[in-house]
């Protein structure tokens, strides 16, 4: 604590995390373009600075000095406040994350609960943006994002609940410590899969980028935004959420600052491990988003409600059984792994069946 002043201390820590978030967003935009470029057999940015490393700074400066348009028919205050409403929850997630075993802005007893609850609030910003823009694409996008984000919250919550059962705590630090040398991804592969799907959905990444579907509704809620507001709403929120959730996933599933050999060299080592693991998750996200097509809205919801949700319940049931009867740990892996294989089969099977997707031509009710 700095000078014994709680408020000053909190302020300094918040500033540090904000600086970190900005830095990470700048790096991520650059990394994404390079990484996706390499997947697509391109080079990515090359001309702005050596190997294009100044690219994201150039983008930022350009966006900041760009004209900030507001459509004449837009709802003024809702339109202007929507980016803030979208960004604040994304940033608030970072507040509760412990980056080492002793450093975070605030380490909460109910950290897991807090992160899950807060990260879902971004949807408010999207709905505000979609409604206020007075644009049909934006409205469609807002409706889609509302449906998607809220639906995917539920299996993710259940999967994390199952994990909390195994860890025996909702405190993120305690969860990390409970993992020890074997991260929870080993004991809970199904839970990790559900979390990954939920993370992709939360950050609107392919195959779940229905709200912003560029080839259908041209960016969704933020179609009318330009300049700085657009960069806050779109780039900043999206990448901050991605970073926050990746660190979160690294903490609870990938063992946080532990690693299998059990060596601990101090806070910088812990920080490095966290970032490496988060980077792994981010790269997986980028890789998937560069190669997958996009699901349709009904398939997206079907995947959530018909596959992920029952599987999450199943996971809770198994975990309860194992924990109550105190069966050995490897049964966790066995049950969860078997359930994951079964999920994979369900997904495979769903695309084999040719369901009649076409409604009668004469009009559709409900």
């Amino acid at each position: 604590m700095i000078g014994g002043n709680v408020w000053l201390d909190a302020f300094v820590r918040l500033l540090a995390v904000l600086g970190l978030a900005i830095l990470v967003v700048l790096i991520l935009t650059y990394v994404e373009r390079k990484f996706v470029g390499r997947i697509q057999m391109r080079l990515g940015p090359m001309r702005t600075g050596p190997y294009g490393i100044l690219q994201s700074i150039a983008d930022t400066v350009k966006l900041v000095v760009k004209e900030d348009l507001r459509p004449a028919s837009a709802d003024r205050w809702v339109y202007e406040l929507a980016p803030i409403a979208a960004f604040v929850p994304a940033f608030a997630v970072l507040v509760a994350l412990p980056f080492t075993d002793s450093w975070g802005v605030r380490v909460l007893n109910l950290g897991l609960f807090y992160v899950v609850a807060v990260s879902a609030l971004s949807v408010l910003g999207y709905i505000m943006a979609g409604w206020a823009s007075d644009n049909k694409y934006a409205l469609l996008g807002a409706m889609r994002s509302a449906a998607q984000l809220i639906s995917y919250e539920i299996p993710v919550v259940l999967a994390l609940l199952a994990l909390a059962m195994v860890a025996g705590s909702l405190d993120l630090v305690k969860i990390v410590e409970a993992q020890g040398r074997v991260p929870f991804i080993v004991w809970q592969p199904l839970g990790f899969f559900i979390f990954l799907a939920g993370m992709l959905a939360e950050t609107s990444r392919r195959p779940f980028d229905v709200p912003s579907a560029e080839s259908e509704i041209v960016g969704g809620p933020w179609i009318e935004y330009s300049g700085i507001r657009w960069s806050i709403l779109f780039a900043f929120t999206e990448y901050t959420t991605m970073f926050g959730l990746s660190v979160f996933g690294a903490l609870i599933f990938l063992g946080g600052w532990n690693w299998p050999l059990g060596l601990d060299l101090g806070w910088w080592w812990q920080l490095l491990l966290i970032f490496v693991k988060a980077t792994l998750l981010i790269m997986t996200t980028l890789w998937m988003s560069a190669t997958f097509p996009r699901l349709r809205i009904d398939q997206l919801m079907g995947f959530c409600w018909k596959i992920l949700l029952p599987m999450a319940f199943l996971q809770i049931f198994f975990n309860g059984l194992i924990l109550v009867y105190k069966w050995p740990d490897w049964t966790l892996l066995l049950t969860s792994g078997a359930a994951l294989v079964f999920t994979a089969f369900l997904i495979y099977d769903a695309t084999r069946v040719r369901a009649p997707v076409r409604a009668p031509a004469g009009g559709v009710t409900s």
Partner: protein
Amino acid sequence: MTVEQEQGLETLEINVNMGPQHPATHGVFRMVLTVDGERVVDLVPHIGYLHRGAEKLSENLDYRQAIGLQDRTEYLAAFNAELCYVMAVEKLAGLEVPERAQYIRVILAELNRITSHYMFMGAFATDIGVFGTAFTYGFREREYIQDLFEEVSGDRMMYAYFRPGGVAWDAPDNFKERVRWVCRQTRVGISDIDGLLTTNEVFVARTRGIGAISSQKAIDYGLSGPVLRACGLKVDLRREEPYSIYDRFDFDIPTGERGDSFDRYWVRLEEMRQSVRIVEQAVEQMPDSGPILPEKLPRRLRCPPGEVYMRAENPRGEYGIYLVSKGGDKPYRLKVRSPSYCNLMALKEMTVGHYVADAVVVLGSIDIVLGEVDR
């Protein structure tokens, strides 16, 4: 009685305008969708944003100059369009095409079919939501073939290389080796695209059963090409009314079963493989040297009065040239029967009842070229 009516709620159908500038409309096509929530209830296509009078202009150019406008009409498969046009002129003028020129034409036209389908693969996958990866895959392979086209004709897109009676100049010396190399490369490229898309669960889920049309309706609407073959009809003009020298090659006609978007994609993928087969056979049979134009070709080409409707199997379907001559060195009337134009007519039939996202997929699966739709 639905819930809405019981509670006195009101549902509203809204009109969503897509285009003329929209990433999914492949140019300047515009469609107005009436949607009920996410379902499409009605669709009104608007075309003509690229109507630039190629038919009218052709009437004021002589027979050879008009080749250039054919390139620009069907700009994704310009060799195929040129081939159809020059065959129409040859039919009217009674020109015989030398053997070597025939083979050069067939090889280039089939390779152009492959490039066109590569373009389709990229655009279609992008419509479904792949973030440009399929596009770059397709374009990488397309560039190899375009390099060959440039070596032969001197231009990347607007070749103007076929002439009534043959081709403009002889192919380069290493033509055969280059074509063989391109064929090998193309086989790899096709399997890349195949691996990226065909078995992808999301891709299959998005295209299976979308935009299905029955074969009777397809014929009634005048559909042709891969869209028609996807309905299960084994029809291909190269086999039914063999033009040029297509009767000398052995190739299969891939067909679909359900006539949906996935079948259209699959038919095109298989067609690319068949095209490679045709090209490989043609390279083997092609004479190493020989004339490329008839000996007694007049400096100013005149056609005797008459008319012809020449049709050819283009990547998008039946490309027809209706050419009326009244003597003289200019076409009296040149009508292009463009396959995309006819295929687009069935868009409403295919789309209504699906989701908004599927409208984009259906449009992509028809594979329109706006230059050819609007002419």
